[in-house]
């Protein structure tokens, strides 16, 4: 595995007394120069992640700023999205995204948490070996495939069984999104449950608690930070999901206000950008506004993710502190 030549050359270079012209010393210098180049490249790619986040934000701003500068705010945050008539109200899109995401969270949270507990606490080993890859399969299915299936197979079911005029509704979108967020929620929640020190569990059981009491009163409360992180990451995924949502929510840009809004078509921010960007003239106001919607999406997901990672850092510290103390 080692290239012994390299090692011996550099190893001996310092103790060699023949001076700088010695070929061995010269070779060691080349090795050092090569390493300097490689290590610099490594450092640069390390910092590149920060650079890319900045670049993404800068280019969204560059293309989206004209929208904020030239479209009156009352129009930009108005209730009507009719780009061809110069009405760029993003409120229906924002409301659509929030409604679909909220619906998805309400469905995915209990399902995801229960599955994480089931896999970690109840399932026998062989079942766990089956379930985990299966959930990874779900994570791997491309969103356009799920959207296609939602459109052709699930929307008709929704229409029939819920007796609504069209199956392409916010509910259908939430349902798809819930399943798409599940792999994230399950795996993060399971990690959190796994991280609960076994002494907690043993202590509760030794005091006479049943397994369920231990799970409900000890394990879940102790893993609450992880569970919150799981939910935040799930929400982040749901807000940003594009293709599946575009294909199943019906894309009607209206502010949902009825009590049964979940069962009407809506249009999300992501779907609007994806559907309309291909058709606008580059540099037009419509084009800038779509980038502005992109900025909104970027900021929303940034907040959600920053919140999740701040809990990750703080929660870890707090638990560590308690264990040490």
């Amino acid at each position: 595995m080692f290239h012994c030549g390299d090692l011996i050359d550099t190893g001996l270079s310092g103790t060699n007394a023949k001076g700088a012209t010695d070929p061995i010393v010269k070779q060691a210098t080349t090795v050092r120069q090569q390493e300097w180049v490689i290590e610099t490249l490594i450092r640069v790619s390390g910092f590149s992640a920060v650079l890319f986040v900045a670049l993404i934000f800068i280019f969204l701003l560059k293309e989206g700023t004209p929208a904020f500068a030239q479209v009156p705010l009352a129009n930009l945050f108005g209730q009507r999205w009719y780009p061809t008539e110069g009405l760029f109200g993003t409120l229906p899109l924002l409301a659509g995204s929030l409604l679909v995401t909220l619906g998805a969270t309400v469905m995915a949270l209990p399902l995801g948490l229960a599955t994480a507990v089931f896999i970690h606490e109840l399932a026998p080993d062989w079942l766990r070996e089956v379930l985990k890859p299966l959930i990874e399969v779900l994570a791997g299915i491309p969103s356009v495939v799920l959207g296609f299936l939602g459109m052709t197979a699930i929307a008709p079911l929704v229409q029939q069984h819920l007796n609504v005029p069209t199956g392409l509704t916010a509910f259908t979108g939430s349902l798809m999104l819930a399943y798409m967020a599940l792999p994230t929620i399950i795996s993060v929640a399971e990690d959190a449950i796994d991280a609960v020190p076994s002494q907690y569990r043993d202590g509760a059981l030794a005091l006479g608690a049943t397994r369920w009491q231990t799970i409900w009163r000890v394990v879940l409360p102790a893993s609450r930070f992880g569970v919150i992180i799981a939910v935040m990451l799930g929400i982040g995924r749901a807000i940003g999901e594009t293709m599946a949502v575009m294909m199943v929510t019906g894309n009607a840009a209206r502010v949902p206000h009825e009590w049964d809004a979940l069962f009407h078509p809506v249009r999300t921010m992501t779907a609007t950008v994806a559907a309309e960007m291909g058709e606008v003239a580059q540099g037009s106001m419509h084009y800038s506004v779509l980038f502005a919607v992109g900025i909104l999406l970027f900021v929303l997901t940034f907040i959600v993710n920053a919140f999740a990672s701040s809990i990750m850092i703080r929660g870890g510290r707090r638990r560590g502190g308690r264990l040490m103390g």
Partner: protein
Amino acid sequence: MRPSRQTSQRVAFAGLTVLATVVVIPIVLVVVYIVAQGIGALSWEFLTAMPQNGMKSGGIFPAIVGTLILTFGTALVSIPLALGAAIYLAEYAQDNWLTQAIRLAIVNLAGIPSVVYGLFGLGLFVLFMRLGTSIVAGSLTLGLMTLPVVISTAEEALSAVPGQFRVVSRSLGATRWQTIRHVVLPNALPGILTGVILGLERAAGETAPILFTVAAFYLPQLPSSPFDQTMALPYHLYVISTQVPGMPLRIQYGTALVLLLLVLGLDLTATLIRRQYRRRRQW
């Protein structure tokens, strides 16, 4: 009277089992349904022929080739950058604000919606760098999008190599880079490979980032240079299921099945590598 502790445990466990079933059954159903509906369309001709008759008959060859090219391009962009970043984080980074900023950036890169990557690719690569809607622009966009997945898995694989390996190597006189190159990397390779495949799997299935950067509705011939547009499987599925009226359902499901098989094939490869690696690992 409160139910006994045993009864409530039984009820709770039954509830958990039901909820877990509700999660798992649809996954199986989705896969089985797509296979059942799409298998009839699969044939040698479907995989290797050009689309004909307004895509309503013939094959999906250019879309398959396009997706393979894009996946390859993504790998070219993503692997060197992600590997460098992972090595930096695992081997060089100190615990300071800069490292925290990098980690925060990676978490946020992972959270940026795919359609926003598409917008960014359009703004930077297609327009600003004047690459046009091209394979290069699409690969760069997809490559950036896969960075966080590959970086995190690769970093995890590098960190899992025991510290003693490094200590021994350095004590034998190897430099830091020699240690990384000859000791750490070979031991972490299977884990890194798993991460790369997972990233490429995501890239192969994505539609939103390629919408405005590379994807073509229909092309009568294969791309001939990296600056050409190309068709791609996910975008093709989107097009034929929403934009082309009267499209035979059989072809739609066939396309969905091919995409699913491609992606799950990559997934399976990653799982197998990981398994093999766990079995062979000697620490």
